[in-house]
């Protein structure tokens, strides 16, 4: 229970959608932090302004990330949230759990914090929401004893995440969870000890549907695809048609490669025109599937708007076989990090860095050849740099 009435928040207990207020109230009479969280939130709702101060640096010994410090600007009024730090716990790949694992996490959090969590944070971590500094070490110890570790924060590698991929999806073109796990384990040091100019995120999606939105919010987006022809089961296509799907209107006309045709009996595709968009596959499960020669494309640089405007990731490697332990990708990442750490400005994401130094120069630096798949189109402006010797010969 909050110490004072919360008439505004109470209104948010009504309605069909699950209520976060009810979640907080579930704990408000067991936990002073939750009671004061209700109070300070009601105050924010009254005043239309937040009551948190800029975070300070808190964390666990030897780690540079994983904890976000947070303090109230009205600690006298709400002492239970005077400290209100969050702990980012690295989720298991694909967000799969057993009931036992979840209970273990709940128990730790029950002992050391508000008992409120985010399942999950936007980057993918389990977030323990609201504790004070002295609990941090104990939480960390209990977590590691239970086999869990902290996620990233600050200018480090952030917690990689992935779609469920081969665990539960017929379209996965590579094993996203294995890849995510391997990257997370291999780069533990980069994850826990910030040494980059800014954060670096990895997200792995098994196919171009991109169910983890990797192209929009990962510095490295690894998106599955295939380089041969889509596989068509004509009998199953016919079943879709029989069920009343309008193959021409719904599938053929929506194909961005303009490479499908349907004559009422067979669906045909011009392989080299296929853009690997997934639509025909999505529209006709069982009938159409990705090809056999599977792998992924590596795209670089997406991020939120700060400061030059948001970016989507752009193609760096149009196709790569995904073979554990992914030494090629690890080497590429290390080359990228080296160049970026050397020449990147403070708080400059890798996508912004590439724009600043020029994609061509960046490729030179990391040792990759230019490829027309890297661009939507070649340059339109005539402002080309050359570096010709004194006599003008290249």
């Amino acid at each position, binding site marked *: 229970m909050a110490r004072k009435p919360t008439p505004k928040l109470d209104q948010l207990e009504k*309605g069909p959608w699950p209520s976060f207020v009810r979640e907080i109230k579930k704990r408000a009479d067991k936990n002073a932090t939750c009671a004061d969280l209700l109070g300070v939130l009601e105050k924010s709702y009254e005043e239309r302004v937040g009551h948190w101060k800029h975070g300070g640096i808190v964390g666990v010994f030897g780690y540079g990330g994983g904890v976000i410090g947070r303090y109230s600007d009205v600690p006298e009024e709400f002492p239970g949230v005077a400290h*209100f730090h969050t702990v980012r716990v690295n989720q298991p790949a694909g967000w799969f759990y057993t009931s036992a694992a979840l209970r273990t996490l709940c128990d730790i959090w029950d002992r050391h914090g508000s008992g409120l969590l985010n399942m999950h944070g936007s980057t993918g971590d389990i977030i323990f929401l609201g504790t004070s500094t002295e609990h941090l070490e104990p939480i960390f*110890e209990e977590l590691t004893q239970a086999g869990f570790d902290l996620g990233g924060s600050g200018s480090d590698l952030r917690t990689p995440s992935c779609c469920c991929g081969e665990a539960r999806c017929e379209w996965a073109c590579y094993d996203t969870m294995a890849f995510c796990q391997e990257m997370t384990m291999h780069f533990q040091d980069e994850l826990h000890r910030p040494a980059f100019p800014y954060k670096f995120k990895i997200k792995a999606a098994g196919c171009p549907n991109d169910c983890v939105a990797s192209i*929009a919010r990962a510095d490295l987006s690894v998106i599955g695809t295939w380089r041969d022809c889509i596989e068509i089961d004509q009998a199953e296509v016919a079943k879709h048609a029989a069920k009343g799907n309008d193959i021409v209107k719904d599938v053929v006309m929506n194909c961005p490669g303009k490479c499908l045709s349907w004559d009422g009996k067979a669906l045909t595709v011009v392989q080299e025109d296929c853009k690997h*968009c997934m639509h025909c596959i999505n529209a006709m*499960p069982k009938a159409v599937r990705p090809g056999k020669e599977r792998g992924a494309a590596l795209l670089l640089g997406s991020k939120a708007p700060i400061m030059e405007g948001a970016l989507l990731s752009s193609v760096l490697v149009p196709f790569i076989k995904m073979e554990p332990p992914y030494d090629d990708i690890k080497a590429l990442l290390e080359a990228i990090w080296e160049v970026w750490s050397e020449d990147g400005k403070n708080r400059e994401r890798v996508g912004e860095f590439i724009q600043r130094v020029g994609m061509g120069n960046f490729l030179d630096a990391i040792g990759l050849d230019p490829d027309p798949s890297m661009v939507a189109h070649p340059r339109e402006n005539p402002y080309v740099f050359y570096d010709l010797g004194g006599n003008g010969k290249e």
Partner: protein
Amino acid sequence: MAEPTKKRVTDIGPPHYKKFLPPVILANYGKWKYHEIPRPGVLMHVSESGDKLYSVRAASPRIVAIDTVRMFADLADKYCGGFLRFTSRNNVEFLLTEDKNIDPLIADLTAAGYPVGGTANSISNIVHTQGWIHCHSAATDASGIVKSVMDEMTQHFTKMELPGKLRIALACCLNMCGAVHCSDIAILGIHRKAPQVQHDKVKAMCEIPSAVASCPNAAVRPAVVDGVQSIEILEEKCMYCANCYTVCPALPLNNPETDGVAIWVGGKVSNARSEPRFSKLAVPYLPNNPPRWPEVVDTVKKIVEVWAANARKYERMGDWIDRIGWPRFFKLAGIEFQKQHIDDFKHAGLTFKRSMHLRYDKE
């Protein structure tokens, strides 16, 4: 910080996912053949081997009490050997092999207040951020708006009657932790006044050169105020991004009178049919009106409704607007086109209409 103990281990990473996969997945990993969606919120994946996996997806408010998590664990024990997962949009999924368990599970979840749905052409959970619950940066609350909007959208979560998927996301400030920038509908907390410089605190709390460098528009300058080293902000160059505040706590922007919410539309992430793209500004400003933000809810509702009524099958919000054009979108959605809609940042010129592909509505 307490002293580290002897048995302290570090860098162990997360537990291996294989420990958490149900037997049916371990047996059919990488061998799934197709899926069907027998009813909203239920996926049936069928393996090459013939094995079947049923996933039952329930809504979550994302902020969950351990009590709720324990309840999910109990339900997983009861119906599916204790196996469950969460989705990239923060829903919870129970992983069943017994189809007879589906209906009772759904009944239990529904009774507990966690509706089942979010599959196929529906509105799934709103990806969102901390808001006034936790973040110092928030120009609006996150959870309150999400709850208010989803209360109106729940029937689109539990049914699959929309032209295509519709993804809503919310971020409480321009940092966009919710990665709202590529959503069918994005709700974004915004400031509209330049930071108030706390001259007495600048020197103690901030590195002045980093603050100066942080501004994308060169609005932050070093200045001496009353003999103290401080900062000045060129009001007319500030577009309230709060980047300076991120590096310098003495530059707060929060302002109850002028903070609020902007609405964006037409972004997407998947490559299906059209390419991924950013959301575009639909409504520059709506007021912060807790606890239920009626202006925001009404606007989102209206946009969803015109889209649902007019889009063709498979047309995501952005595809639909591409087909009908922005002028008609603004007309149908009843939104006034204003100066603020026109880009004036770095690449603005590339957003101007540079062709004669114009449409004229019948009067």
